[in-house]
């Protein structure tokens, strides 16, 4: 029995409950932070003089550019497909999610390959016009911002669409009744109401931008993450690299806390909706179609065609009996991770709703920071404590005359724990946005009935955040399919996935040879995308 006085319901448990989940992220974070005990003055002096000024400016420009880019693309596309009606809407509403399945480094490599001086576009221009020197360089700040925007807008699109579908039309109708034009209704009512979703999506896009190394390096665009890897791989100074990574995490934490303060005490509750779409008129109608088609073409169709061309070229050398196994491993790992991380994200969000004290809120924020750390650094942060624990266990096993090489290492348990540390933010953002929709009255009513946190979760919160859960599971699934450093570091011997295969093929710069596993990742990522759309569309007529 859970009554108000029950020890389980005691509000002071908040930090501990949150900590139980946050430990997954906190332990590797502490390992990374521990680097500060090993000061690296010489390396810092060099980096501060020659490297950091440039990369800080680049990173700032990139974050602002990609932030605005994904905000514009994600919100506009979500609004169009969720609330309006125009030719091809149904098709675009799901196909615009597809770029999520396309790894950012593949998109970057393909677009640079096509649009650089030596690519087919400029070669064609030179052949016909004699010169292509007027063509804007793709390997430039604008090029990076453009490509990362196209790679990461689906986060905002997915979350914002979730918000608009559940409340957008109703909000516009209500606002119009109050005398607003439709345009004003969008800006003054629908957009502010969707704020937690949009902010969640932009947060994910920016964390991924900050942690990205693969894509920016294809552009030779140096960011803060470039400096981290330079310290590690070129100066062989992992301590300095970890210190830089810690600073990155702290910046993200500060931004998260500011965001939290700004949102403080706002409520985002709405009631049910009546789904009647806004029919766009002639000009607007076709503009919407062309806009959606253009984005889909650049972010997905073009790289997809390039992958297919390469696959036709190389599949004979590459395809063998191991491929079904790679695919199976990938789907299995991504599926397991999607379930585990989504459950953890849900619990974390429920804890945050139940315990409003500052300590709990902070711990929840800390738990989601793993997404902003460059993957390879986090992988080492995960591996060091696991290897330490394993060595103790192996010693113990030795006393029991059990001869074993590894116990935790290379186990699914460690893989899932490590992937959780990275992707908790991905599950948390959509779930928490949906959670904020539950009205204060509903929550108060549940509590005044003396329902335990568990019952509130099962009977009130869970049914109301279904959409958020599905979105969370989808993004985690697709992200794990694409993930490399943690999978590489924690997988068992011989247990390779498609992403591992991509790594092995690209480690010597042979991108075309990586086409087959890349294509398989994209195709496997499509399944949950289609599934999600089926679910989210079911509310509409």
């Amino acid at each position: 029995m859970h009554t108000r006085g029950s020890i389980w319901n005691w509000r002071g448990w908040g930090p501990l409950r949150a900590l139980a989940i946050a430990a997954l992220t906190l332990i590797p974070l502490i390992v990374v932070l521990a680097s500060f005990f090993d000061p690296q003055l010489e390396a810092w002096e060099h980096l501060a003089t020659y490297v950091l000024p440039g990369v800080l400016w680049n990173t700032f420009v990139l974050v602002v550019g990609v932030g605005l880019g994904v905000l514009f693309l994600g919100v506009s596309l979500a609004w169009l497909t969720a609330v309006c009606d125009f030719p091809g809407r149904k098709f675009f509403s799901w196909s615009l999610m597809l770029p999520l399945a396309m790894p950012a480094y593949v998109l970057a490599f393909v677009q640079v390959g096509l649009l650089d001086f030596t690519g087919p576009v400029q070669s064609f221009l030179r052949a016909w016009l004699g010169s292509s020197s007027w063509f804007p360089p793709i390997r430039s700040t604008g090029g990076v911002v453009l490509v990362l925007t196209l790679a990461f807008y689906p986060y905002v699109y997915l979350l914002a669409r979730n918000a608009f579908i559940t409340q957008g039309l109703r909000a516009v109708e209500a606002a119009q009744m109050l005398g607003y034009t439709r345009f004003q209704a969008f800006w003054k009512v629908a957009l502010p109401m969707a704020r937690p979703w949009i902010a969640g999506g932009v947060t994910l896009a920016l964390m991924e931008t900050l942690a990205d190394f693969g894509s920016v390096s294809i552009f030779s665009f140096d960011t803060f993450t470039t400096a981290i890897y330079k310290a590690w791989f070129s100066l062989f100074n992992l301590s300095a690299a970890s210190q830089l990574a810690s600073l990155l995490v702290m910046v993200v934490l500060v931004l998260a806390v500011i965001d939290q303060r700004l949102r403080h005490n706002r409520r985002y509750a709405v009631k049910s909706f009546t789904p009647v779409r806004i029919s766009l008129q002639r000009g607007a109608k076709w503009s919407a179609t062309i806009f959606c088609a253009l984005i889909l073409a650049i972010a997905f169709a073009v790289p997809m065609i390039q992958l297919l061309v390469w696959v036709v070229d190389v599949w004979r050398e590459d395809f063998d009996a191991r491929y079904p196994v790679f695919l199976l491993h990938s789907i299995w790992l991504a599926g397991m991770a999607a379930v585990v991380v989504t459950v953890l994200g849900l619990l974390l969000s429920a804890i945050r709703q139940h315990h409003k004290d500052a300590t709990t809120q902070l711990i929840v924020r800390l738990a989601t920071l793993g997404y902003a750390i460059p993957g390879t650094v986090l992988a080492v942060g995960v591996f060091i404590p696991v290897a330490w624990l394993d060595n103790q266990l192996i010693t113990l096993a030795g006393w029991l005359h059990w001869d074993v090489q590894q116990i935790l290492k290379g186990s699914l348990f460690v893989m899932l724990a490590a992937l959780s540390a990275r992707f908790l933010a991905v599950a948390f953002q959509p779930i928490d946005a949906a959670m904020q929709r539950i009205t204060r009255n509903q929550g108060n009513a549940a509590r005044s009935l003396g329902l335990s946190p568990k019952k509130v979760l099962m009977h009130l919160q869970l049914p109301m955040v279904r959409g958020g859960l599905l979105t969370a599971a989808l993004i985690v699934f697709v992200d794990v399919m694409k993930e490399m450093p943690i999978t590489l570091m924690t997988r068992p011997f011989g247990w390779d996935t498609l992403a591992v295969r991509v790594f092995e093929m690209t480690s010597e710069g042979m991108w075309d040879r990586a086409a087959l596993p890349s294509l398989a990742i994209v195709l496997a990522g499509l399944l949950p995308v289609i599934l999600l759309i089926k679910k989210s569309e079911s509310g509409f007529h």
Partner: protein
Amino acid sequence: MKTCSKPLALVLPTVMAALVFFTGSASAETVTVYSARNEQLIKPLFDAYTKETGTKIQVLTDKEGPLLERLKAEGAKSPADVLITVDAGNLWHASRMGLLQPIKSGVLNTNVPANLRDPKNEWYALSIRARTIIYNKKFVNPSQLSTYEALAEPEWKGKLCLRTSKKVYNQSLVATMIATLGEKRTEEVVRGWVANLATEVFADDNAVIKAVGAGQCEVGIVNTYYLARALDKDPNMPVGLFWANQKERGVHVNISGAGVTRAAPNAAGGQRLIEWLSSETAQGIYTNDDFEYPVNSKVKPDSIIRHWGPYKMDLINVSKAGELQGNATRLMDRAGYR
């Protein structure tokens, strides 16, 4: 944690099952290899070894940096026997981190030249990767070319293409330049290169080759096997190879190599594998599959690279590249070579 009981009840049995599933044990002789080399090269090699000897090979691939940290974290309990990686710098650092053990092997000392192995015998080169000058045949006459240093002269302004300084191949090249020419002269040369760049530095050697081929620039510096692969695909590409610094120290070479790890459970098996990799059979696969140069002088290079002729290689011990890699990186940062 009442809220957690349900999901935990689901997760725990799966985890237990997985623990049992993953920790199987092998009965035949097994050698465990940590490798940062491309899988499509090492797989045929290992398959051949297993076929010949019956020894099973267990491979774990990852990037060099994480692999070294992995070995370090595993310490005395590491399951690895052999570390295989590219670049002398990585091997030098593995040795300095105390992750390798010395090998006493007459076979390896015969097959691998002295400048291509660790002075303490902790690692041995298994293939040679020469980094030299390429040029566009339409614009450049090879007689205009001589040394890496000459590419810093004003006559090449706006005509040079380079890969990023973040790639270890360029760090090793500059490190050996520091060892021969000193920091001051090397920095002048690197500044000259930067001043001569036709465009932003590229992310990989393939892009440099393409840019030279398309006439975006006239000269570049790349590893020869990238050019061999590109010419294998498109023999009409107007890109020629020039052996740098032949009248003096010779062309810069880097290596891929291997060592037996310090905590190796099967050190003898690991040593046998490395010895076999230096044998004529294995060396033939290295050069024919990957267009790299064999370390074993009894093996002839692949036909595509044979017509580039013999070359004089810089005989400085490749471990110097590791020792001076940090200096090289700092120097390139100072010189504005991104």
